[in-house]
């Protein structure tokens, strides 16, 4: 069932986009992995990035919260440059303090969950609000329990990650990211490491998040999700954006042969 959403292509409106990447280039050694990527994600929009492995889609996502450094181009979150400051007209690596501050506004969900194994689900969620935001433990626990409710994991609050299934862990990971009340959520193949029967629960949480108005950038292979929830689909291949547009157009009338070939290969397995 298709969830009604906005027109699809990001319209230029008065307010600034939540995520803006301009002409981003990145090298891993000599490998030119990002070749001039432009992204504009307006507030409240869900951008889905699809593409074959090695296309650079995870890399550009990781550049958005400066887990990877860029060699050229600009990235801004809610108008603020991410990871660097302009000093005398030249970009200079930002301080650890500023980078951490900006990162706390950008939530990230990883393919391998990356929950802290030596802490319970609840402890995982309250750790950052207490240590980074200086929240009181009781307030943090309050918020954590609400988030656990939201992702349907309340009864597992005191479980350790090793006692939970992949889908449960990922939902806890989403709650952990949400605990910092980020402006935008990044999903790096959040369901790729899950057994198929667990994928649905996580996608439902992501869908609800989108309905609640969260700005999201999602790297995924789940085309159904992209069609249902995405406002804008970006197809990447070999470090460039081959084409982008509303899901209805990309999936039904792809303009480029590479897009068609990719969709054929993916939809064959779904």
């Amino acid at each position: 069932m298709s969830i009604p959403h906005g027109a699809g292509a990001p319209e230029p409106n008065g307010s600034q986009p939540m995520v803006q990447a301009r002409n981003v280039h990145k090298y891993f050694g000599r490998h030119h992995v990002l070749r001039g990527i432009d992204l504009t994600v307006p507030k409240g929009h869900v951008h889905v990035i699809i593409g074959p492995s090695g296309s650079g889609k995870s890399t550009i996502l990781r550049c958005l919260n400066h887990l990877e450094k860029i060699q050229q181009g600009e990235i801004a979150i809610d108008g603020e440059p991410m990871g660097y400051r302009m000093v005398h007209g030249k970009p200079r690596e930002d301080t650890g303090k500023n980078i951490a501050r900006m990162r706390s506004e950008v939530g990230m969900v990883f393919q391998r969950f990356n929950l802290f194994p030596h802490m319970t689900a609840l402890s995982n969620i309250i750790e950052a609000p207490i240590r980074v935001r200086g929240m009181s433990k009781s307030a943090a626990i309050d918020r954590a329990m609400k988030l656990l409710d939201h992702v349907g994991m309340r009864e597992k609050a005191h479980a350790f990650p090793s006692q939970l299934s992949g889908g449960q862990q990922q939902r806890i990971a989403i709650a952990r990211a949400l605990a910092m009340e980020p402006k935008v959520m990044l999903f790096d193949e959040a369901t790729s490491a899950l057994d198929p029967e667990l994928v649905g629960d996580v996608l439902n949480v992501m869908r609800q998040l989108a309905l609640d108005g969260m700005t999201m950038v999602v790297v995924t292979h789940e085309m159904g999700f992209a069609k249902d929830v995405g406002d804008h689909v970006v197809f990447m291949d070999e470090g460039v954006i081959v084409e982008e547009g509303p899901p209805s157009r990309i999936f039904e009338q792809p303009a480029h042969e590479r897009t068609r070939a990719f969709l054929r290969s993916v939809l064959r397995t779904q």
Partner: protein
Amino acid sequence: MLIDGAKITLELTVLAQVMGVLLGIIAALCKTSKVLPLRILAELYIWLFRGTPVLVQLLIWWAMLPQTPEFSVALIALGLNEGAYMSEIVRAGLEAVDKGQTEAAQSLGMRYRQIMSRIVLPQAMRVIIPPTGNEFISMLKTTSLASVISMDELLQRSQNIYECTGCDGANAILPLLAVAALYYLALSTVFTFIQGYIESQLGDRRAEELGWFRAVIRKGRLLFIS
């Protein structure tokens, strides 16, 4: 008499090992730091103190600090030496922690100090503890070197007894050394059991979840009561 020597030996072992662990953690963090001068300093320290024999280091410190009591000199020498070796153990522990842990913590806005102390080091302990147990048992025996600077520990006392003038020294050498060796063996054996116990607790999933340290304390208390 000898038992007091054993006590002092034990004291030196514990203090020198603790010093070694602390220095090792600092050196490992420096060695993996982004700050170049810290990295260089750490490399220099490790190179110097791993590259020279402990005995030589002990004698050098003793010669440099004539006014300082022997126990302190031995502590400095053994502690510094141990720190160099511990740094490699700690570094291996840090590298054993999945990089995703650091990335998750970073993406939540945590900073280096918090990430290290709350996320990485606790997980690194699992890899650091077993070899540290070995280092401790090794340290127990290394303290016997302090006898060469006349420190009043177990071996020195044994030597004093059979070297004393007017005593029937020559016949007493072997028995005394045998007793000293037995003391070392007894202490080593006790610690080997303790180490084995701690390691089994580390392997136990329940213990990891309770926090290995709390689990050991809890079991220890039970043993004590029963």
